[in-house]
């Protein structure tokens, strides 16, 4: 049972464009939704996170939009740069320190 569904599997965006990654979850007990960024040969790094009582959170060029009724959330990367090329994972957990359920990941490539 895939509790967190992520799309697309891969994404190519021109430099300066907007990258959008979408996720959907099933378990309404989830209360914490982090996004992780992973470069080849490295572990995932926490990028930004949101709680379901907030509809949007912005940190620099990265924005999470959250729709609690639809059980969907998305990551927008504004002014995408080649250095943003990485694999992005959406995730969910019942609290910050509980086990994390990850989406399958999106491999993002920003064209220079």
């Amino acid at each position, binding site marked *: 049972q895939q509790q967190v569904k992520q799309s697309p599997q891969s994404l190519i965006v021109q430099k300066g464009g907007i990258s959008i990654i979408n996720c959907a979850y099933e378990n309404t007990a989830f209360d914490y939704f982090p996004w992780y960024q992973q470069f080849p040969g*490295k*572990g*995932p790094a926490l990028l930004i996170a949101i709680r379901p009582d907030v509809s949007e959170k912005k940190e620099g060029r990265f924005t999470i939009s959250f729709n609690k009724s639809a059980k969907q959330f998305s990551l927008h990367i504004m002014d995408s740069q080649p250095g943003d090329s990485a694999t992005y994972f959406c995730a969910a957990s019942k*609290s*910050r*320190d509980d*086990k994390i359920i990850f989406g399958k*990941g999106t491999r993002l490539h920003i064209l220079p």
Partner: protein
Amino acid sequence: EAGVTQSPTHLIKTRGQQVTLRCSPISGHTSVYWYQQALGLGLQFLLWYDEGEERNRGNFPPRFSGRQFPNYSSELNVNALELEDSALYLCASSGVSNQPQHFGDGTRLSIL
């Protein structure tokens, strides 16, 4: 501040052997988590240790086990290795009071 450190970085074993992976959490963190990142399967939760106790376990067979030491470092043991155990094993740690998880760069385990 030193991050989560894992050893070894790479390991090659044959079927049927046993392996021990090690993790040192960020200083001050008391919880340690283990995840498996296998090709095509994404990141899957394995084990969670907090204050020396196993708090939660993912859907893995009993030959996957671990422990947490008084200094909060942790070991993951895998017995009777199978080909499908080939994966990147990631350790994460978090502090007290509902803090987010921070990952190490993992141990790449290859089973021949």
